[in-house]
């Protein structure tokens, strides 16, 4: 899977995805048959209340979890039956993650937190450049403890994009931030999507954020309840919540 280069059409194609968590006596159906596609350069927001299955879907797309039924293809390659090693490689070379709680390594500086990924990637960008892109060129030698929440999240974004992934998966990236800081983070994500053309999936339960997307997928109860295309992407600067 290391030599996937096709980024023209659908980056992801999911067909009939179901996910059942076997919890002993009861089974929880987190996803009940999802069909979706993600195209190159697209910014998609997955919107839904908690428990709607959006994180499960993102985890499956990101190779952190596997579907109970259905197929997921990434650039034409099937992820469904991938081995542990293949999934690791997939995450290593092709996907960028941004988490709600940043998940930076506290013992590494901002620069090193990016370098920790570029050291193992195939054709990464320079860590300094990645940090410059998120507006942290002057904070490269700071440790996470010396950065604000918003700055930490921007380091996390720099870390996610430094490997030049085909797709960026963001799970509630503003969830732990106040709105003005959140908007700065969203601006960075939008800039990355626009400048690098990285297909981006952004999970949120905040409907206002949906307005910055090309496409909004509404999830509820493990199903896609509605899909909407925004004619005009709003700039994060114009969002309010």
């Amino acid at each position, binding site marked *: 899977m290391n030599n996937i280069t096709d980024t023209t059409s659908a980056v992801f194609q999911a067909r009939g995805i179901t996910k059942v968590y076997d919890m002993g006596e009861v089974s929880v159906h987190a996803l009940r048959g999802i069909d979706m596609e993600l195209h190159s350069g697209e910014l998609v927001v997955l919107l839904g209340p908690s428990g709607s299955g959006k994180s499960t879907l993102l985890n499956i797309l990101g190779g*952190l979890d596997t579907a109970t039924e259905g197929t997921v293809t990434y650039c034409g390659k099937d992820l469904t039956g991938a081995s542990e090693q293949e999934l*690791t*490689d997939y995450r290593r070379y092709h996907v960028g993650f941004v988490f709600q709680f940043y998940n930076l390594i506290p*013992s590494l500086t901002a620069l090193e937190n990016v370098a*920790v990924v570029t050291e193992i990637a195939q054709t990464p960008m320079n860590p300094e450049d990645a940090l410059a892109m998120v507006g942290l060129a002057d904070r490269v030698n700071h440790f996470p403890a*010396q950065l604000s929440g918003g700055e930490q999240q921007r380091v996390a974004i720099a870390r996610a994009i430094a490997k030049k992934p085909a797709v960026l998966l963001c799970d509630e990236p503003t969830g732990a931030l106040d709105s003005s800081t959140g908007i700065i983070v969203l601006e960075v994500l939008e800039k990355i999507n626009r400048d690098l053309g990285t297909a981006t999936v952004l999970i949120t339960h905040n409907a206002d954020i949906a307005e910055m997307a090309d496409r909004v997928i509404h999830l509820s109860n493990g199903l896609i309840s509605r899909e909407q295309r925004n004619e005009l992407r709003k700039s994060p600067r114009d969002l309010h919540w």
Partner: protein
Amino acid sequence: MNVLDRKILRNLWRMKGQAAAIALVIASGVATFIMSISTMQSLKLTQATFYRDYHFAEVFSSLKRAPESLKTRIQEIPGVNRIETRVVTPLNIEVKGFSDPVTGHLYSIPDRGKSLLNKLYLRQGRLVQPFSDDEVVIGEAFAESHDLHPGDEISVVINGRLRELLIVGIALSPEHIYQMPPGALFPDFERYGVMWMGRKTLGTVYDMEGAFNNVSLTVSAGANISDIVDRLDDLLRPYGGLGAYGRKDQLSHRYLSEEFRQLEQMAAMFPVIFLGVAAFLLNVVISRLLSIQRDEIAVLKAFGYSNLDVGIHFTKLVLLIVLAGLILGVSGGAWLGQWMSTIYKEFYRFPFLRYELQPAVVASGAFISIAAALIGTVYSLRKAALLPPAQAMRPEPPATYKETLLERLGLKKILRQPSRMIVRHIGRRPVKSLLTVTGIAFACAIMMVGRFQEDSVDYMVDVQFGLSQREDMAITFIEPTSRRALYELKSLEGVQRGEVFRSVPARLRFGHRSYRTAVQGIESEGDLHRLLNEDLKIVHLPAAGIVLTDHLGEILGVREGDELTVEVLEGRRPVLRVPVAGLISQYIGVSAYMELASLNRLMREGSAISGVYLSTDSDQRPLIFSKLKRMPRIAGTELREKAIENFYDTMGETILIFTFINTLLAGIIAFGVVYNSARIALSERSRELASLRVLGFTRGEISYILLGELAVLTLAAIPVGFIIGQAMCFYITENLKTDLFRIPLILEGSTYAFAATVVLAAACISAFMVRRRLDNLDLVAVLKTKE
């Protein structure tokens, strides 16, 4: 059961691996403690009971010959309780199918009535019939080593005459728990036997009718033993008394006491070290365990639980673990103690065993472990409780890190990010890292403690029997004899070399200190029996003056140049003043040496000798033995090979078995420490590692970060452990000095290697177990939760 208590049980179940490791550490510490103390106490209790029930005498003396009527005069000595006079004769024993020379002593027992003192415990058969002239009871140790039973016949040579005796019983005596041939350093149950026969018959055979040559007595409560010893000595002097002595100088008792003292020292030291290490670890582990429960503490407080409630809750958790360890430790320790006591009972040939585990011992073991656990708990709980709940529940701010000194010194360039993480993680909490290192170092050190004695014992034997006592056999005569005996023995076929020695029983005095031993007169240019100094260089005896082993020097508090009083305990019993010409180094025994001619001169006895050292051609040995057996004046033949064997047997059964078990327990402690360090590191860092996994790191790569840290700490701990181990071993050798032997502090490379290997093996096993957990990290969960 309320909800919180149920929570404790579930918490415990979730951390069962770790809890088990902690419990095992406690159990090992407590087991060592219980085992050592209870074994020791039981042995002493058994000994005391045996002594009491079988009326072991308190004062003894041998003499040439005294009329039975003297007994009334002895009885008149104030404080004397029971008296028993006896006839004791040396003898040569012929055992069919056993070629080595065997000697022994025959003790009389009353024909009428029972023995008053030193009573026999019959194992098999019966006592001798009154006035029977060929019945004999023999000691169990000797009987067992030659497979002799009641009904068997045995030939002995008494007073030059061969007699066939019928064994009617096998017995134990409190007087002969240890049976040592004259001149031997260690008991030899095969070549030395003790027997008992009727007084009348023995008196006739040994020309002692109406007379005795041995007396023993007990004293009434509160009597002054040394006073009685002196008076008895005065009384017996005209009858050829060989110096009365109290129980503390009685051979079997002295040997036993020294062994017990050694065991007691170990029984005191090992548990202190082990329990100390276990307590230290418990403290470290528990405080770290609680520090990762910070959010739970906060939640409980947010719900309105007081600091005290929270404290009690977590204390219960800790106590449950400690309790599990205690139960395991106490029952394991009691079991081991009983097992070991049984081994000792067999070894020392006590007729019965009184195993006893005193509640106070259990209580102190419990107290130490609980206290250690609670100190660790209180400290960490206080830290957690000081935090306002709201702050504790918020995601913990990222820990503050900085570049380590190592990196600033330029190492940074060569370290990749994962390695930097290792270095910084260690550097961020230096105290914590130091505690981990100390813990592992202690584990390494106790492994050395368990192991080093073997090296030391080997070294001791090499020096004693390889460099110093090089004769193949030492032959001791019944009485001092003329030098002619040497030529007689040298003329035997197969004898290569012979040197003579004189051994004079004496009490050495310096100031208020005294010690009963023998002054050995040896030839100063001798090649077989040599004296060595600390550097193993040969010391030649000066023409005048006495030379003491360093240990004896310490006992008496003398230095070179001091003047020593030598009270000779045989012949005309002169009291001599002899200058101390020097001290020599000797690991085994407590002796004083003089140049043979100078000793003879002081004794005014011409060229008398007590025995001969021989080196022989090993092929000719059976021939030599058969000749020796026909020489009536030989009291004992000590063979070097057998002496070494006996030494190892004694050591093997007593000290080494003790250290073996302790090594095993130390191994468990070592594993517990390393495993817990790894597990705690895992729980502290699983989130970080899972994040890296999400970012595409392989299992191997994240394992490197966690296990790399463990490896660094373990490798740093091993040299520290070596140093601590050396100190502990030094402490032990200093405290294990007894009259029997002094273990030198010898630490071979193999001991270091062994300790390091055990620690590394523990680290590898722990790493393997942690690695399995790393492979199953829940990647999804970790991203959804804050710390």
